């Protein structure tokens, strides 16, 4: 069971950026800078107009991968804390998808780590998006269709 005190969460519900940032901010007065990245659902992609995005996960593996991502970030960068939240549900354009929060004594490390976490999450965590395109009658995939056979 994931709780709002957990630094790594995959959840259906929306999240409050302020609550997530404050949860980290109050943990240490050594924090000089907090860099965040908030990913939102855009209303377009290479496939055309996007009316919604559905996210699917390989639940057990995704949870482990995100925990590992946090641990790697804490080892790799001179930072104090990292929080990673990813929604797995259907979101409409404008809605929040993913939030990375990195607190550090100095801003350079906070920025470096925040960017590394979101870049690496995309490569490393088994979550997939499927875009629902309103100008195409069928569902369309974000990723290049994978050749089978």
């Amino acid at each position, binding site marked *: 069971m994931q709780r709002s005190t957990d630094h790594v969460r995959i959840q259906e519900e929306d999240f409050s950026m302020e609550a997530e940032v404050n949860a980290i901010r109050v943990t240490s007065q050594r924090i000089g800078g907090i860099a965040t990245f908030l990913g939102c659902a855009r209303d377009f992609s290479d496939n055309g107009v996007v009316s919604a995005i559905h996210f699917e996960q390989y639940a057990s593996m995704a949870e482990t991968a995100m925990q590992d991502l946090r641990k790697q970030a804490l080892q790799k960068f001179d930072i104090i804390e990292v929080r990673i939240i990813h929604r797995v549900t259907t979101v409409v354009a404008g809605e929040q998808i993913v939030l990375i929060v990195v607190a550090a004594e100095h801003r350079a490390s906070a920025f470096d780590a925040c960017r590394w976490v979101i870049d690496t999450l995309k490569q490393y*965590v*088994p979550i997939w998006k499927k875009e629902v395109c309103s100008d195409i009658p069928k569902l369309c995939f974000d990723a290049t269709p994978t050749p089978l056979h």
Partner: protein
Amino acid sequence: MSIQVLFFGVIAEQQKTKALTIHGEDGMTVAKVMAKLGISPSKALLIAVNEQQQHDIEFPVHDGDEVAIMPPFSGG
């Protein structure tokens, strides 16, 4: 022995299922599991065995293992 195979994203749609069980010899490779399912090896496919990503399709699987065949991740 039996192996649980999981499909995700476009692979699940193409396989028309999210999971199935296959039977074979203990120690058979991931490549052989894929061959049994009629899936050609491709750099665009990601494989995990027991939730650990495996880049070598000659990786052997054993009774009770869980093999996931996945399209490229696209979260975030």
